[in-house]
């Protein structure tokens, strides 16, 4: 157990630390997405019980009785998880964790140390620069939508989208794979969002597009305005342009995505 002047002290993991670690991870990544929300079971599996990880490869920083930072380092030199309390002296905590990670990996004969961090994390970036780490884009991630109507509704519900009067947007999707339905509606009303799978003769705004365009719009790979101008998205009636644009904007997943190494597999 090693202390310092800021009141932080460091020790390796002890059984019972799991729930504090999990709540630190979830709270510090509250404004990010793209990762598996941590539960004690999941954390034990993806970090603690990983064959590459030994309990001695997990360092926690404690202030008072609270865990304010931790790092999980594998024998391979992979940093599976690193997290710190951003309300504290982040630079001191991260520097301590990473210096320890380098020493630990070196002592086990690893060839390198590799970690993932959110691109906007200036503290990690600064410490990594000082420790002569090189930066690279992380492993590319690919997504495939399996249940588009349910996904669309989940996003709209999460964004608490509703309408004073009932409004229906009907999608006709081209080039859908056989496991996806190519036609469905979304009804926005006072009571929230409802999926409609059976076509009916109700008044609606029809949106015609390719499935890949809709997915690209949702995941930020395509710009709504540009897609409309390029006729990649067509709709009827035309005078609904503002509400279609607004609706498609609402479908966009715009929370920054961060993938910790422990989630990669």
């Amino acid at each position, binding site marked *: 157990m090693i202390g310092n002047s800021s009141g932080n002290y460091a020790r390796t993991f002890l059984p019972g630390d799991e729930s504090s670690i999990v709540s630190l991870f979830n709270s510090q990544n*509250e404004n*990010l*997405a*793209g*990762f*598996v*929300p941590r539960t004690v079971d*999941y954390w034990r*599996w993806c970090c603690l*019980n*990983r*064959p590459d990880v030994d309990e001695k490869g997990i360092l926690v920083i404690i202030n008072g009785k609270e865990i304010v930072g931790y790092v999980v380092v594998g024998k391979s030199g992979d940093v599976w998880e690193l997290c710190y309390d951003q309300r504290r002296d982040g630079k001191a905590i991260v520097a301590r964790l990473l210096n320890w990670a380098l020493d630990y990996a*070196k002592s086990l004969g*690893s*060839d*390198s*140390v*590799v*970690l*993932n*961090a959110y691109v*906007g994390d200036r503290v*990690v*970036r600064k410490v*990594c620069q000082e*420790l*002569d*780490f*090189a*930066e*690279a*884009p*992380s*492993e*590319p*991630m*690919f*997504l*495939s939508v*399996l*249940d588009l109507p*349910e*996904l669309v509704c*989940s*996003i709209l519900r*999460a964004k608490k989208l509703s309408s004073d009067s009932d409004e229906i947007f009907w999608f006709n999707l081209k080039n859908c*794979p*056989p*496991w996806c339905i190519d036609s469905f509606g979304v009804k926005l009303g006072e009571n929230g969002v409802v999926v409609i799978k059976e076509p009916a003769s109700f008044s609606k705004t029809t949106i015609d597009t390719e*499935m*890949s365009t809709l997915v690209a719009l949702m*995941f930020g*790979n395509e710009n709504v305005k540009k897609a409309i101008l390029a006729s990649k998205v067509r709709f009827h009636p035309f005078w609904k342009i503002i509400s279609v644009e607004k609706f498609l904007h609402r479908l966009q997943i715009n*929370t920054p*995505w*961060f*993938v910790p190494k422990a*989630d*990669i*597999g």
Partner: protein
Amino acid sequence: MNLQYLYRKFRDEDEAALEELLRNTFPSFKENNLWLWKYKLNPSFKSSLVILAEKDGEIVGCNYWMLRELKLLSNLHVKVALGADIAVHPKHRGFGVGTELMRYPRIYGAFKEKGVLLSYMFGRPELSKKFYEPAAGYTVAPNCTLTYKKLFNCNQLKDRFQKIDQAVKSNEELKRKLKDLAMCISFKLKGAPEFSVHIEPEMVYLNEGKAEKPDVIIEGSLPLSSLVLTGTVGTGDLVKAWLTGKFKIKKGLRHIFKIRKAFKLFQAALK
């Protein structure tokens, strides 16, 4: 669907054959208990989400889907399946087995019955258009993650150059092409110890440490130079990186096209 192959869900008696296929495909499975941890000890393991390809009673391919929650927005978690360990025995590659393994749980409703809204995977960008997208509609996910890397030594790079050297020695055409490209390139990179690559008429090797009289000195960051070392960076990107100062040639600028040619040959040698 190719009728020569049978696609089905995993059964307990498949364990040994599946483990062997994984060990032969991914070196990491040769290490301690990776199979047990990743599959059986995974709290969300579902045998119905391990899909196998079988031919004449032999397991020749597999794809494992890990059920989990993924945070999509700050207040939205959805059920997803992470596609992992897609493996096809080398003798059976090129017959569409990988594509069918990816499609099987989609077509036969294995995801639907578990309420899975999305599947995702980590893969190689160059396979996106020719494999992931046509096979299962995969698109690039938004990602704001950076990887930081620091090498303690050049062992990984040395291994790579040993393989290149073996390939060169056993290939007369490569030897002939490398004859005009003889040089010593010294690399001073952020995140790595100094090293040099020696290209000689019948030999290619990497030395850790300072080179005595290099023909070329390259400074830059490790990731970009890795692309140079793997021959995957195009001339345009190289010139752009050089103009923006990410990649500096301190000595021997006139050799830049020779360097690219040599590393392209190395890439071909490793294929």
